[in-house]
């Protein structure tokens, strides 16, 4: 979707165990939910 809007130079960071040891951990594990950093640039 970022590409469709026009963004370029898209990068995705390493996964982060956002929900580990939290109440939502079980559901997060079930669907392999992790947090990520995303970077993209609007062309100049």
């Amino acid at each position: 979707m970022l590409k469709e809007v026009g963004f370029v130079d898209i990068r995705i960071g390493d996964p982060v165990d956002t929900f580990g040891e939290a109440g939502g951990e079980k559901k997060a594990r079930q669907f392999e939910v992790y947090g990520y950093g995303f970077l993209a640039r609007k062309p100049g």
Partner: protein
Amino acid sequence: MSTSTPVDPAALREEVKSKYRDVAENPHGSFHFHTGRRLARRLSYDTSVVDAMPDSAVESFAGVANPFALRPLEPGERVVDAGSGAGFDCFIAGKQVGERGRVVGVDMLQEMLERSRAAAAQMKLGHVEFREGLIEDMPLEDGWADAVISNGVINLCADKRRAFEEIWRVLRPGGWLQFADIANGKPIPESALRNIDLWTA
């Protein structure tokens, strides 16, 4: 990150408001996600910066990853935080851009705006301000921002394309979008996607 719109956008927005109003008013309550300093450590924020911040600026933080991990902001930059919540990432951004820069946090929830404005005043951050608005319709002029940050918000938007198009509008040419969000490795059943309670559960 799912890109479809399986739920009513207005109903989802009200559900999100209800959940995060609770985070604003009861930051030490029981949620399905971590909050505050514990979460900031888990997400690898700079502890020397976070430790120097008052509790009022940290305790309602409820992000999902670190939007500064792939690109720290540069001094003097103009930054928008789309869905700024209690302001935690705006305060980190304010530190990175310095007093020559500007940071505008946009949030739809009055309770979060009150918290973030009070914390900014407590920290005497005159270059960090907060405005009421939706991520899909932000109160900023075209091309104002050198960078747009966001943390755990876009996944809660029913129309993600609209959100990205609005971010595109407020960014200057050459500007950066650096956001944090969750993504699932296994497909979520259609029935679950249509259950609005599960979007914030």
